[in-house]
């Protein structure tokens, strides 16, 4: 079973697939005994996960995650970022605790989802050596991608 399917099956178990993906998975489950076994195992692990109490996160986890995600950050942090970090911390703690048990699902828990701007930011940062690139355009592209990468939106765009 390839990893794309593993992740899709894991998402299916959690009810996080599109209608088209749901049809793909169900068709696949009808035909593939290995997939059926994997599905049963994931359902069992999901039920096990749900039965466990939440584990407290280490006190310095927020700072470590923020530093890893944003480089070196200083100053006050927005409330929604703090909330996102704590949700991430609980998920990460549960994942680490269940490492030996959760197999296909762990891939998805560990998977990083950089978003479109995770790619475009790095691309733009390295195109300054193109001989014909326009500095003003680079400036717009880099600053737009930076804000998307940080999950920030200027006030004017929020309205």
């Amino acid at each position, binding site marked *: 079973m390839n990893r*794309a399917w593993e992740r899709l099956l894991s998402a299916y178990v959690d009810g996080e697939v599109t209608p088209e993906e749901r049809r793909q998975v169900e068709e696949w489950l009808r035909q593939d005994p290995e997939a059926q076994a994997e599905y049963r195992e994931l359902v069992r692990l999901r039920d096990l996960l749900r039965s466990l109490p939440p584990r407290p996160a280490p006190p310095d986890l927020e700072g470590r995650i923020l530093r890893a995600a944003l480089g070196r950050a200083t100053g006050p942090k927005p409330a929604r970022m703090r909330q996102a970090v704590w949700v991430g911390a609980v998920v990460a703690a549960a994942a680490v605790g269940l490492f030996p048990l959760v197999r296909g699902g762990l891939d998805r828990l560990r998977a990083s989802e950089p978003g479109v701007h995770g790619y475009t930011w790095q691309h733009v940062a*390295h195109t300054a050596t193109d001989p014909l690139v326009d500095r003003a355009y680079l400036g717009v592209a880099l600053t737009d991608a930076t804000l998307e990468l940080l999950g920030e939106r200027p006030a004017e765009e929020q309205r």
Partner: protein
Amino acid sequence: MKAVALLAAAAVVLGASASGPAPTPLAVLRRAAEAPLRTDYEALQVLTVPRAEGAETLRVAIWHRRPATYRMEFLAPRRLAGRLLVDDGLSSWHYEPSLHLLVRGPSLARAAVGKVLPLPENTTVRLLGTDVVAGRATYLLAVLPASGGPTRRLWVDRSTGLVLKSEAWDAERGVYYASTVTRISFGPVPEELFRVPRPRGARLVELTAPSLGARRLSELARAVGFPLAAPADLPEGFRYRGGGVAVLGSARAALLQYSDGVSTVSLFQVPAGRVGSPPGGEVLRVGSTVVRSYGAGLLRLLVWERRGMSFAAVADAPLGVLREFVSSAEADPSLEARRVSELAHALGVRPERVAELRDRGFTFRQVRVLLAGQPSERAAGSLTRAVVPSLVEEMERFERVLAGAPGASPGGR
């Protein structure tokens, strides 16, 4: 074809108004690349850029002090108004007033300090004639890559060499990008304009971009800890220009960059399962591969998986160019070994010689040309025996430029 016809028509019209002996197109282009090294200026610039909801017109005030210092104040539209970017040649400092946020990022001024990459052999540069922009006399150049990537038109100031107007065109999008200087003045710019902004109480975030110093794919594979898939072939005119370790969220990915001299394609690779696809996007098929396609301004991102590897390609390029990257990135080591062996046998050389050139980022077609100087009828494309020495020289120039070697000067043809 349409682009060529338009350019030819422009040449006839504009050529008639040219006066005096015209410099060569390459001389004009080289001068344009070097102009920021010699000139201080302040300017107002208007850009038209595609966005998801349609074209957006931007107004930017720019101050430049030679060789590599910039200040940009974004004036319009409202979403950008007040945004400030100061680049001191080492770092860029982006201040977003509505968020009270200061971001230190990579400098965007490297091209201005003598690290301009050379244009590949098969890029065509034409001088179409003369024109007037912001009240100043300009040469109008067209740069046409052989790759099928975007065609550029540049209006180059006759006196200073600065690019005062530019347009990008491709067959899919027509003219999709335009930038014009509406007012410009030359002369010293006050130093205080380039001071790094330090707004009291602002949040500071620092972002670093990876170095693209890896000349060999094996070197990069050691750095990221997994084997890489070297594209078997590339769109005409594209060359490998370097690689490095990229950070995608919490995952370390390999970033390989390819250039046709005008456009750059970034190819990311990471074992499948370590990154997920961004949400949304349009689903395409390239052969048997399912690909997700996303638009981001001028850029297009394609994401796909093959044989346990997750790939992503980003570029300001037509979809056709990116689809070729999808087709050619093969993550099967046994297939790579077999093709190396077959090509070595066909050329009568040791497989290690072919593998060594593959490791330097050459495609199989380029390896064939380098080792035989005589491409097969099917794979020849426009690469000919005459190209061979310059292909090697070009790669070596790339390496010197990327290494920042003294004497690595802007190039082109």
